[in-house]
């Protein structure tokens, strides 16, 4: 398989994962802005921070509110990480790697692009926002479904999955990074409704509010939320789950090619740091420090994979 094709697949699925995550973040932000009596500016600001585009946003908009943030995150083509920009980039990658995709996957990608281009052609009004966000998630789900349902479980699939989980781990880590202070033990707000709303937003941003409730009933605490999102291997968006999946898929490649690389060691180190850890130990070294280190390692792993499998020469 061409190195370029492997890279194209990897990035294509990173992009799709990112667009879905952005939609989920906007959804959580929007809900906060509707349920809080105070100004919604802080909440939107933290959404902007999570996507690491604060400077670019401030160049485009003076005000932080539902209209400006959703516009910037969903449909602004000058923002390279807006949903529309990303979906277009993903489709360009799909065209690039067309020969590696089944017809079903390609058509799902193309359909996603056509549908969203139409849905995001004009600014999205508040009352259309929930439906539009649902549409973005649904289109992304259709692409994933086509991948699961029609692709051979071979190297092509492995690279697609590695991209998916690297991006997802990065995203969950960023949400935790921006919101870590909400999870820190604090004398202020403890047990207040503000905390509850904040925590729920975090869970909602990773589509885990129901799952959390199944497992914890009404026992909502910062510590157990952190544990859930970082260490719980049952949650498909937790750091531990994503890292394990990366290791699995890299192992399939190693079996297939009969060759291990530096990225295999790096991925296993990442997993073992999560597996051999407890939430207490993480709070002892500092949640913020732990998350920052994870984001750095996860990025480095991505670069190592690109190099080991010759994505760019």
């Amino acid at each position, binding site marked *: 398989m061409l190195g*370029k094709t492997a890279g194209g697949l990897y990035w294509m699925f990173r992009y799709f994962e990112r667009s879905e995550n952005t939609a989920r973040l906007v959804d959580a932000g929007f809900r906060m802005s509707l349920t809080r009596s105070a100004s919604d500016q802080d909440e939107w600001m933290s959404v902007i921070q999570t996507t690491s585009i604060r400077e670019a946003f401030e160049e485009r908009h003076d005000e932080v509110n539902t209209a400006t943030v959703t516009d910037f995150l969903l449909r602004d083509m000058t923002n390279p990480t807006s949903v529309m920009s990303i979906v277009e980039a993903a489709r360009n990658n799909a065209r690039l790697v*067309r020969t590696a995709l089944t017809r079903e996957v390609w*058509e799902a990608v193309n359909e996603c692009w*056509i549908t969203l281009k139409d849905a995001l052609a004009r600014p999205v009004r508040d009352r259309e926002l929930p439906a539009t966000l649902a549409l973005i998630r649904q289109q992304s789900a259709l692409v994933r479904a086509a991948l699961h349902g029609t692709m051979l479980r071979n190297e092509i699939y492995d690279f697609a999955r590695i991209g998916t989980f690297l991006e997802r781990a990065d995203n969950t880590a960023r949400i935790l990074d921006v919101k870590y202070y909400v999870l820190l033990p604090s004398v202020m707000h403890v047990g207040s409704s503000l905390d509850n709303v904040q925590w729920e937003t975090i869970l909602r941003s990773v589509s885990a509010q129901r799952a959390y409730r199944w497992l914890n009933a009404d026992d909502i605490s910062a510590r157990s939320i952190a544990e859930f999102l970082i260490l719980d291997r049952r949650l498909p968006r937790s750091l531990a789950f994503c890292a394990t999946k990366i290791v699995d898929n890299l192992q399939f490649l190693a079996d297939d*090619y009969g060759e291990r690389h530096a990225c295999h060691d790096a991925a296993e180190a990442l997993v073992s740091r999560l597996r051999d850890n407890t939430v207490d130990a993480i709070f002892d070294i500092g949640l913020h420090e732990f998350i920052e280190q994870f984001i750095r390692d996860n990025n480095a792993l991505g670069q190592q994979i690109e190099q080991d499998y010759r994505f760019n020469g």
Partner: protein
Amino acid sequence: MDRAGGFFDEMLGGGETARPPYSGFCDWLAGEETARLNKKSKEAETFFRRTGITFNVYGAEGANERLIPFDIVPRIISGREWARLSRGIEQRVRAINAFLYDIYHRQEILRSGRVPVDLIADNEAFLPKMIGVAPPGNVYTHIVGTDIVRTGEDEFYVLEDNARTPSGVSYMLENRETMLQMFPELFSKIRVQPVSDYPKNLRRSLAACAPERCDGKPVVAVLTPGIHNSAYFEHSFLADQMGAELVEGHDLRVVDGKIAMRTTRGYAPIDVLYRRVDDDFLDPLNFNPQSMLGVPGIMDVYRSGGITIANAPGTGIADDKAIYSYMPEIVEFYTGETAILKNVPTWRCSEQDSLDYVLEHLTELVVKEVHGSGGYGMLVGPAASKREVAAFREKLVAKPANYIAQPTLSLSTVPILTRKGLAPRHVDLRPFVMVSPRGINITPGGLTRVALKEGSLVVNSSQGGGTKDTWVLEE
């Protein structure tokens, strides 16, 4: 249906009833309602859009991916008509390959005086780097698209020999696929020769042209300029259908005297490269040094017999529009036979007498740039405004050798479906030919391009043309 005055209509001929090749189709058509057909036509468009069968338009802003309009009325050719056409095409393609070999070796045809020496020596399409190089199997034009127009019951002309990198074959295949999906009942009633073997045959034909030193199964790859190229869809489509890798210049490099592609497991050698990149961009070390699309050093590997490049570099000299006018002589010189397919009479503006004639008759003629393609840079005299003619006259006088002129042909028509029913439109035909040491293979049919605008003679997709499925009937 209205009939366009003075033109040969392939469905009706000169009469009121369908010509024999169309009779089965017309029987079926009589039972169909225009509204249903129009609905089907919309469905076809959705199908093309969803599948992503698009082409990119250079310079167009915003929506820069367009669909080539597809018309659902097929263009039908009888088995007997096709037999004659394919004999003529085969003869011509054989002659072109012999001509190319000769031109890059002993140049007998120049010595005999049949083709003037200047025409080759001063021609940009002639590649001195190919002199004395024998391509694997002595095949120059692995893929040819011969543009043919019809003006009457038995009147066929070759308009152009596309011997560089002819495109459009993906539309031939997808058009048929679309028709099969939309009107399966038609194909059970009417026996149409299949075209779907094209990718498999192309792969075989290319593999048969692999370099002599290649042992084992030849590795074939398609070289594309990238996703922004106007024909990118076709490049990826063909690679996909052939089961070949789709590569760009930056995926390739010279490794141990072979061209190799960068894979996830290191560099893997390629034996046959079906390139959809022009000669000039193929090798920055040997040709245009600015090119980012090619592979540095590929020409050296090629000359040493390490890779097959399809089509061979330098084939452009054979489809040059100035050479075109000598095709009847070329066919006769190399085959010893009279050309089966006619050439359109052509005035070479480099010759003073011809130039004088052309300047006097500009409003009646079609004037083309010698190296142009895609319908750009040409004048269709009868359709042009006074100002356009005047502007073109200046260009022509400034550089006469850059132009040739031809009479405006009365291109045949085939009906298209409009909202009000059928209406005749002008068409041409591009059959696709494969050449290998094993022989010449012509896919029955080809791409029919149709000028959608009433009265228009320009069928190019970049200028408002559409396409039709082309049927060659089983005899």
